């Protein structure tokens, strides 16, 4: 913002036509990541062992499963936005840029879906390792 017509500034529309939404969502997910990824790293490293039984038991706790699903949404949405800017800034060839943006979205949505489904499957199975 800061350029363009007065009414354009009021509406918050820049060249991306989404105004400040991208900026806001990037910050919102950043706060989510700050809390949830810190929790995840600390909790995971504090586990004495990381074998199958320990991980499945840990993941089957409702608090852990829900926090990890929320973290997955926050992280994958955050890097979808961040890498989009990265691609828009550095990939100048239009065809390559579109291809990279499609690949990014497939990776972010597909990866998040696989991660969330896996967490849910372990949690619903009850963790009888």
């Amino acid at each position, binding site marked *: 913002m800061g350029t363009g017509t007065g009414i354009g500034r009021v509406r918050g529309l820049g060249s991306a036509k989404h105004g400040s939404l991208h900026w806001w969502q990037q910050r919102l997910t950043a706060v989510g990541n700050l809390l949830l990824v810190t929790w995840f790293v600390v909790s995971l490293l504090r586990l004495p062992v990381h074998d*199958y039984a320990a991980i499945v038991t840990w993941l089957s706790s409702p608090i852990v499963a829900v926090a990890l699903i929320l973290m997955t949404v926050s992280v994958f949405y955050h*890097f979808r936005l*961040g890498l989009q800017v990265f691609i828009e800034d550095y990939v100048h060839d239009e065809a390559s840029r579109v291809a990279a943006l499609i690949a990014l979205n497939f990776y972010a949505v597909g*990866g998040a879906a696989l991660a969330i489904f896996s967490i849910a499957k372990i949690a619903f199975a009850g963790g009888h*390792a």
Partner: protein
Amino acid sequence: MLVSILHRACGTALAIGAGAIFIWWLAAAASGPDAYATFYNYVAVPAEGDGIAAVTTVLAKIVLIGLLWSFFQHMASGVRHFVLDTGAGYELKTNKAGAIATIAFSVVMTLIVCAWLFSR
């Protein structure tokens, strides 16, 4: 300048590197003990006599320590962005001190966590 580049580089490394390992780890755990054993063999503890896994677990440790540093660096410069978003910290000296502080934080935190992990 350097910290700005590091923010993007670390963010990209985390998205692709940590993201892929995270997905593999969860999908393996959800697929059952055999799939998880494969992940565990190549990333955490190699089976005896498995030469390839012996190499990949060492590489995995290097990659994971790198990702841990990337996490702390991206986190610190991200928090710095929040401060800059408020319009504060643009004086040259303050700005430079903030940039250096993010690197000091990430290096110190990585060393502390590694020292703790290897002392267990």
